[in-house]
Each structure stands twice: as C-alpha cells, then as structure tokens.
C-alpha cells in the first residue's frame, strides 16, 4: 500500500485500468484458440478444401492448391520444419491470430474481403439494434420504476404476471405471429427482405417491434428488481425518515444509484448491437452481420466465423472494461485509491 498511497487518485485508476487492459490479450488469445480448436480438431483443412471445391472429382493436387491459396497448408501449432521462432510463428494458428489482432481480417474461404463485407453489413444490423435498444430503454425503465414504486399493488402484481407469462413465450412466436398478422393478414408491410436508404424503414418496422416485444418482459422485471433494491436501501429509508418529498428521494437518491446497473445492461448488449440478432436477421432476410455469421457457420467458412467470434468477444470484453470503469468512476473507494 506504500506505493499506492504516493499516487493520486487518478494515477491509481490509470494503473488499474492498464492492468485490466493487459488482461484482454490473453483472453482474446484463448478465444482464438478455442475457435481454432472447435473448427480444426474435427474438421481438417482437407475436409474444408473438399467442401469448398465440391465433394466429387477432387484431385489431391487441387486440394493442395486450395490449401496453399487460402493459407491452410501450414501445420496447426508447431512447424517442425522450421527453426528458431519460426517453429511457432510459421503456423496456421499464429498467422491467422496475429492478423486478427491487427484487425486485418483478410479474405474469406470463399474469396471475399471480410472487412468490406462487415462494413457493408453492419448498417442493417445497427439499424435494427439501435432502435431496439432505445425503445427498450424508453419503455422498460419507466415501467420498471412504476411497478417498483407501486410494489404490492394490483398493478404491480398484474404486470409482473404479464412479464412472467411473456417470458415463457418463445421469441419465435413473436416473429411468426408478427409476420402472419401484419404482413399476411393486414398486408401493411412486406414479410421479409431489405432495401437501401429510406425504403428500408418498412422492412425494419416489424423486426424492431418483434425484438422489443420479445425482450420486454425480462427487461421490465430486471429493472423492477434493480429499483426495488435501491428503494430498500438504508439511505433511502433515512431520507424518507427525514421527511424528504418522494419525488426528491426518487430523483436524488434512487435514480442515480440505479443508473449503474442499468448502464451495465446496456454495455453488455454491445456485442449484440454490432453482431445483430442472429435469429431475427435470418428470419427477416436482412443482410446484416447476424445472418452473415449464421451463413458462415452453416457453410463452414472458418475465416468469417473466426473473425466474427473475435469481434464479438473483443466487444464483450471492452464492454466489461467500460462497465468496470463506470463502477470505478462512481465508487469513491476505487476512485480515491483506498480499496
């Protein structure tokens, strides 16, 4: 502690943050290793080549060519033919992973530029995910607060029951029922598809609505618990005992403290924002990153799957880091360097 006490609070947070940042690298390496193992232990490069070239009439020479062209001709982890550091570096795992760490995603096994694909496809994903996030916040936070304030009332019990019931409904139901009702019976919007520019709105309406509805029950319940926890804290009771007005207790004591857990939930959805909802996108045929990933997995395109897993975990870890930072910033014990 002697060392820490010579630092000011800001330094402490910086050092702590840098230590956390250093922790990101081994995790990403582990993620890469796991993806690599999942694909290659069971699915050899020979199999991949055969799948991409078509199952029949494939010569061994053609397979070797394909493997060389896509960089799968190196050994997996240890290259015994080389010497020095090249034993480790001239391998399939190392070259692939290092490229990812420098955010150079290369080409897919089908020959497409992954980075270009991602730039194209992230906008449809964001166009669904952002409205969903905002709508969920606008609807679920006030509702959660309202039931927490009116706890024990008929309104609270009714809404909680509704939430529990809606959590038991498969998300597939909302998608299928929504498509059937609005696109087939009422013919208000197209069933699925996507368009460029403002024409996209009529395609996005239903997916956004469906996702908000499907997640609302769990979200409202969670917010209710968060607010209840804050309301039952001692300092709130003290404030009430002091005779503070309910509105001032709410805006002065409950809301600021409940903000952190709420931020956490938003930050945790960060990878979801970017990767899009796999299911929704493939159901509504929206050319986003979610359907990109599903297609890649189904076609066993290792290069794309590895990249998407990498980006997903990177965002998740960055999200965790941001949450920690938010907590650290809010918690005087960490901010002032005494804990």
């Amino acid at each position: 502690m002697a060392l820490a006490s010579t630092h000011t609070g800001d330094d402490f947070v910086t050092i702590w943050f840098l230590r956390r940042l250093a922790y990101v690298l081994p995790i990403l390496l582990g993620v890469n290793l796991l993806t690599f193992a999942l694909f290659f232990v069971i699915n050899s490069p020979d199999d991949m080549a055969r799948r991409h070239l078509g199952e029949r009439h494939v010569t061994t020479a053609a397979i070797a060519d394909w493997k060389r062209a896509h960089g799968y001709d190196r050994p997996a982890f240890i290259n015994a033919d080389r010497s020095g550091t090249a034993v480790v570096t001239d391998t399939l795992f190392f070259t692939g992973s290092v490229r990812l760490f420098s955010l150079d995603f290369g080409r897919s096994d089908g020959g497409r530029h992954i980075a270009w694909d991602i730039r194209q496809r992230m906008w449809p994903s964001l166009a669904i995910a952002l409205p969903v996030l905002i709508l969920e916040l606008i609807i679920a936070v006030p509702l959660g607060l309202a039931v927490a304030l009116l706890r024990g009332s008929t309104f609270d019990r009714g809404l909680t029951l509704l939430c529990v019931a809606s959590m038991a409904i498969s998300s597939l139901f909302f998608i299928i029922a929504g498509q059937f009702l609005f696109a087939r019976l009422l013919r208000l919007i197209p069933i699925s598809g996507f368009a460029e520019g403002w024409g996209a709105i009529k395609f996005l309406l239903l997916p956004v609505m469906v996702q908000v509805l499907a997640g609302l029950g769990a979200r409202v319940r969670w917010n209710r618990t968060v607010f209840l926890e804050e309301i039952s804290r001692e300092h709130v009771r003290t404030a009430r005992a002091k005779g503070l007005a309910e509105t001032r207790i709410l805006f002065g004591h409950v809301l600021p403290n409940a903000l952190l857990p709420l931020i956490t939930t938003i930050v945790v959805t960060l990878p979801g924002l970017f990767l899009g909802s796999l299911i929704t996108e493939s159901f509504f045929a929206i050319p986003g990153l979610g359907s990109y990933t599903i297609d890649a997995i189904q076609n066993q395109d290792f290069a794309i799957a590895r990249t998407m897993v990498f980006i997903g975990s990177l965002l998740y870890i960055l999200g965790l880091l941001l949450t920690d930072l938010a907590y650290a910033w809010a918690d005087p014990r960490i901010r002032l360097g005494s804990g």
Partner: protein
Amino acid sequence: MGLHFLPTDLLFLGTLMLGLVYCRNVARDPLARARWAKVLRSVGGGVASLVLALHVTVAVLDSVRVQSENEAPLTLLDHLLTPLRTGVETTYSAPFSTHAYARENLESAPGTWVRDYPRLQFGGRHLVHPEEEAAGDIARRSLRGAAIGLASLGLLTLIINLVRRRPPGRAWRQWFEPAWRWHWFALGILCLGVGIVGNLAGGWHVLGTDKVGQDVLYLSLKSVRTGLVLAVLASLITLPIAVVLGILAGYLQGWVDDVIQYLYTTLSSIPGVLLIAAAALSLDLFLSREVGALHSLALRADLRLLALCAVLGLTGWTSLCRLLRAETMKLRTVEFIASAQALGSSPGTLLRRHLLPNLMPLVIITTVLDFSSLVLAEAVLTYIDIGVDPSTESWGNMINGARLELAREPVIWWSLAAALGGMFGLVLAANIFADTVRDAFDPRLDPAARGTHGLA
C-alpha cells in the same frame, strides 16, 4: 419382449433417480424440508409443480422402450397412445375435422370419379353422417371424459387421504382449507383436461394432423420428452463443472483462481449462439463420421440430442461458476468456517459439512432458473439447423415445419399452435416454479445471474 434403452433414456432416468435420492435427503434435513414445503405450499409453486409432475410423468413414460418382435422398440407412451400413433392420415387435417385438407379423386359410383375431400381414416371414422353427428359426438365424448376426470379426482383425493391417514369421509373438507384450495382446483382442472382430451382423442384428431398425416397431439406429447431431456441433461453436465471449479477457485484462490477465472471469462466472452453453433456443428460432423451408418436412425438421432445437451451444458456453466466462486470466497471469511478451519477440521469435512450445504441454495436457484431458457433454446437452435435431429419429435421441429404452412390457404395453424402452446405451458410452469424456489431459498439473489442461454 424386453426393455430397450437409448443413451438419453438411461441418463434421464438416472438423473431422476438422483433427484429421488435428493428428495430422501431433503426429508431428513429439517431446514431443506421447510424450504421445499414452502415452495409446495405456495399457490404458484404448488400448481407449477403439479404441471411439471405431469410433464415428467409423460417424459418418463416416453423413456422406457419395450422391444417387441419384428418392430422397432416403442415407448410405454407409444403403447398408451396406440390409437393416436396408428391413426395416420395421408396429409393435413384440421382439428376435429372428418375430411382431409386436400381434394383427391374419389370413386363415387363404379366408374364415375369426382374430385372431393376424402373422409379421414381415423378422425370421426365412427360416424355415418359426419356433418350432423359431429357436434353431438364431441359433446358426448367431452361429457364422458369430464365424468372420468372427476371420478379420478375423487379417487385421487381418497388415496391422498388414505396415505395421510385421514378418515375418507372428511375428504371434501380439503377443498375448503384455504391453504390448499388452489392446489385442489388446479388438480381438478388437470384431471378434467386429461379426461376430456383423452376421451376425445379416442375418435378424433384433437389437434389435427401434420403434413404426413401424423396426429399433432401425439407429436406434441412426444416433444415433452425432448424438451425435458435437453434441459435436465444439460443441467446435469453443467452442475459438476460449475460446482467443482467454482468452489476450487473460491476456496484455494491464488493461481488456481486466476486460471479458473480466465477460463470462464474467455468462454463467456464468445457470443453464446456462435459458441453453441460452432460446437454443435463440429460434434455433428464428428458424429456423422464416427457413428455413420453403422447404427439405427433412432440411435443416431438420440446421440445428436445427447450432443446438443453436451454442447449446452459445456457452454452454460460460466454464470453459476462465477456465482459459486464469489459465494465461496464470502463463506471462507465467515466466522464458523474460519473457526472450524482453526480447530483443524480437514478440507473434506469442511467442504461436506459447511461449504456445500451453504452453497446448495445458490445451486438450486440457478439450475431451476436456467431450466426454462434451455427449453426455449431448443426451438431457436433447431430453427437454425443446429438443434435436434429432424426425425426427433420436438417443438422446435414442429415450429420449423410450420413456417411454410402459414403461407397456405386455408392457413394451417394447428401444428404451430400446439408447439408454441406446449412450450408455453412447460416454460411458464418452470418459470413460476423457479420464482417460488428463489423466494423460498434466498429472497436476495442477484437477478442478473439469470439465464446463460438468452438466445435471440
């Protein structure tokens, strides 16, 4: 004749045996007994456990296979539902319909052919003039079913009273005990429902038939087993990993803790669906190569279900592990454990006498909470083709098939409705059960721990 078991049958039945052993232990432990009694006494918990018990009964009946001569082994449930299983039509038919969904060429008189809807092979076959007689027949069968249901409710009351050694004449008073009123009400509804549906199903397709003419009620009853087996076996795989690693990390700390923390952070940082998809596809390839065409189709489908359980179990342990680690760390500093340590009790005794009993509520709550998300996950995963085998009866497969049926004219809604309704019933019961368990075991558990399989 002889019994025949598939791998998931044995594992599922084995897990239920473990559950029975746990129940026996609960009966001896006053604290655990009081907690479970609280769950069962509460209206939500009691009614939900009744519904869950019904599901488990169906799943158990569907997990015991009887090998008969010259035939593929059939489960006890198959034998019980023989009319439904064998009453196969040629294609779709609506619930309670007497005629098929599509027109066919029919011979009305020798030599003359007309294009009309043919009569069904099974649904309403016993009627001569289906148009006039149908409503009356359905009403008669419903009434008879209701009578059977009520009679069995009375019998059940009698048995319960005999078991609890109460004079049978006072059975009716049970209805008016406020604490048990809703339990009896729910039991009555269940008895009535089973009686009516069971009686109607003897002559009708209560939920219609699917594309190949199979009875939808039969299919959705078979799906109960798939959903339950998936959730139970995935939890069975998750539990030991999470408990062992969580306690090790929290108890030993130091580098062991670092390694375990690293493991679960890495695993949980991969987006859930991607991890499950990659693992499932890899296992699938492995299965098709290793098991190949060597074995029966049933065995392959069963192994694929088992593989899915393994994937969900192996990817789903991180949140419980994290919770257990934190709880163990907290418990270590609690006085009674510190003093037990100081008095020289061995780590084994410490673990068995002090740590495990105190961690048990957390384990139970999390397992029960995760249960319903596992059932829901099956449908989503099956939709993106990484779920159960297409030949396995499951709600996911029913929904998957129903997507195209909605586009037909007239709309075929019954498969979809049956699958979604079946899932809703099981998941709702599991959710309510989980809530009451949480209330009984620990009212202040972190709600953020909920559901590692929050798909879609």
